[in-house]
């Protein structure tokens, strides 16, 4: 058995203590007047700043939200039962902030930066305030690079650019989180050497889980680890059992971490899942702080709550390094009601929305995106040319299909043209179906959408479409791999490439075995 000499221990202790200086500490204090429901009213603290972090006994921290004439209203980030009336509150002299750094990647943290994944402390040397002002006009430039989600329906028709704010909205159980997770998984490609050679910059991801079950968060972590997406992702979790103040600040903490990447000239993607829960948490603490309630009992500044968060998404000008922060907020609707207070607010703030519907989901269209009412207001500029070319006719074909869809039940009573439109539409819808955790690279999306819109699927039965797509993509990859390479490199669809795709498609059609 190894032996430890007592004088060695003494030496270690002495070394530790030698760095400890005992000086007079000067700090400001206040006294707790009233405490309860995660709120404390404090007398004193006369010089405290708004949104400053204050320290209560028993290692409970709080944040100052209300500055009143003779008292200060604080929200507590810990258990309010640990605090008693008359306790001493200390100022910390810093506004609520988050430690940031590259070491945050691959970790699960609380909104205050404390790791909760059991992988030990995180070494960072920089703190950034949680609430930061969004950038102005001068510092920005229009969105111009695509952020590939790997979901064909989105990348083709509702493209998202780096620096955009795109809302994911839908009822419960419609696959909102799935869209977000797939997007994170698809960013794995941007971290490869191949992407670097093609000039695609890596995207770092931040997933903010607000008011979710711990089990759901654990599931997300497990999935991201399984698909190798954790090394470039940070998860910020304020679960349903955390106090409302933590849920309230969680998205701001996520934005701060995203901004750290953005400001160092890199690209970040921030997913806020979901903002309806954050609004509810904010409503709870606003009411407890006795701020007057407004519509649906939300406080008057609930619009500002989300607008100041989403305004922080941005694409920096080249002078500032050209970094970007893309925001994908998630909103859960009740019974498809998009005209409720919070959904309308966030729809009006964002640059477009991806609308997920439960009846589509139940009909087997997954991802259950309603492409008719989903839009992206700025992403079109960022789409690669090849995709732009094929997506134009896709949108048109699907719009015509939706118009005639009601007639589909009349079947053979319809004229030839209508029947053709319906058949094509049904195949396109089938083509856009996609499994979870299986993002498709953009060059493959381009080829399969090209095949769909140019009538190569017309002779294939609807139930065979997915198999046909899979097999032809494999066929092209093996025999005509140059097609993918050209699209990747040139990002455009030249007439020669089109000829090549047509040739490959005809060759494969003759071999395809219908089931």
């Amino acid at each position, binding site marked *: 058995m190894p032996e430890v000499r007592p004088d060695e221990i003494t030496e*270690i202790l002495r070394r*530790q*203590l030698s760095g*400890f200086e*005992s*000086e*007079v*500490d*000067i*700090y*400001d*204090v*206040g006294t707790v007047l009233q405490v309860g429901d995660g709120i404390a009213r404090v007398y*004193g*603290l*006369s*010089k405290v700043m708004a949104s400053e972090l204050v320290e209560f006994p028993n290692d409970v921290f709080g944040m100052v939200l209300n500055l009143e*004439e*003779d008292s200060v209203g604080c929200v507590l980030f810990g258990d309010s039962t640990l605090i008693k009336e008359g306790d001493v509150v200390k100022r910390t002299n810093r506004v609520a902030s988050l430690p940031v750094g590259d070491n945050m990647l691959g970790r699960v943290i609380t909104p205050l930066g404390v790791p909760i994944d059991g992988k*030990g*402390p995180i070494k960072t040397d920089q703190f950034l305030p949680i609430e930061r002002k969004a950038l102005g006009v001068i510092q920005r430039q229009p969105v111009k690079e695509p952020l590939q989600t790997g979901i064909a329906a989105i990348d083709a028709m509702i493209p998202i650019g780096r620096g955009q704010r795109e809302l994911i909205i839908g009822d419960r159980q419609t696959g909102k989180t799935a869209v977000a997770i797939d997007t994170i998984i698809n960013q794995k490609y941007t971290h490869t050497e191949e992407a670097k050679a093609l000039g695609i910059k890596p995207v770092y991801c931040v997933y903010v889980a607000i008011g979710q079950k711990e089990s759901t968060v654990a599931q997300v972590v497990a999935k991201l680890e399984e698909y190798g997406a954790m090394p470039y992702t940070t998860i910020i979790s304020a679960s349903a059992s955390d106090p409302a103040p933590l849920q309230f600040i969680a998205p701001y903490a996520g934005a701060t971490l995203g901004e750290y990447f953005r400001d160092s000239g890199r690209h970040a993607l921030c997913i806020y899942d979901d903002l309806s829960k954050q609004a509810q948490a904010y409503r709870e603490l606003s009411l407890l702080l006795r701020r007057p309630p407004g519509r649906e009992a939300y406080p008057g500044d609930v619009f500002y709550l989300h607008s100041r968060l989403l305004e922080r998404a941005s694409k920096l000008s080249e002078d500032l390094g050209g970094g970007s922060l893309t925001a994908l907020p998630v909103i859960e609707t009740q019974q498809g009601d998009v005209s409720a207070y919070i959904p309308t607010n966030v729809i009006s703030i964002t640059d477009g929305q991806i609308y997920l519907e439960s009846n589509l989901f139940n009909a087997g269209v997954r991802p259950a995106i309603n492409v008719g009412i989903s839009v992206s207001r700025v992403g079109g500029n960022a789409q690669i040319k090849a995709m732009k070319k094929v997506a134009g006719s896709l949108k048109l074909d699907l719009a015509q299909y939706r118009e005639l869809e009601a007639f589909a039940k009349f079947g053979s009573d319809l004229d030839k043209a209508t029947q053709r439109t319906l058949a094509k539409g049904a195949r396109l819808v089938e083509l856009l179906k996609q499994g979870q955790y299986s993002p498709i690279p953009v060059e493959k999306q381009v080829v399969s959408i090209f095949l769909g819109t140019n009538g190569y699927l017309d002779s294939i039965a609807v139930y065979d479409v997915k198999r046909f797509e899979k097999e032809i993509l494999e066929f092209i990859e093996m025999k005509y791999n140059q097609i993918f390479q050209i699209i990747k490199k040139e990002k455009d669809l030249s007439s020669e490439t089109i000829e090549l795709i047509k040739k490959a498609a005809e060759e494969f059609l003759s071999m395809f075995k219908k089931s």
Partner: protein
Amino acid sequence: MSISKVANRYADSFLANAIEKGILDEITNDVNFILNVINSSDELQRFLASPIIKTELKKSILREIFADNTSAHTLKFLEFVVDKKREDILIQIFEKFIELKDDYLGIVRLDIKSAFPLSEDLKEILLKKFESIFNKKIEAVFSQEDNLIGGFLVKYRDTVYDASIKHQLEKLKQNLISGSLSLN
């Protein structure tokens, strides 16, 4: 209106009045005396706070208690406060008065706590030091608090100058916890 706001208003006008009449010292003594009396008697506090007792009765009782030891001016102010039915916040008014008076005279009132009674020499040194920090006249109340273990703690309004062993031990504990991994 909040209590502190009301107390501030009464105290402010009482102070202004005292300064105008040039009887600030006298009034200050009265106020300290009355505060002492009220703080030492629970019964008197309950009496002041009670809404059942009639204004006239309150006035006559207060007159009886304080007439011999305080100036006519202070007595008049007491009656005025009772007339306005603000006698329940009399303590706050007088505390605010002391605070405003200190500001006016440029006095810093310190609350100094120590684990052991300080010797006169030590008190002298301490007061000198704080005089140089604040650049103002210092008035201090010394008291003993055992749980400080050692050292002293000075409180000026919301600011604390903490040189107690208790605080240092707490800091040391924090240091050891956060630095515990560097031991290995």
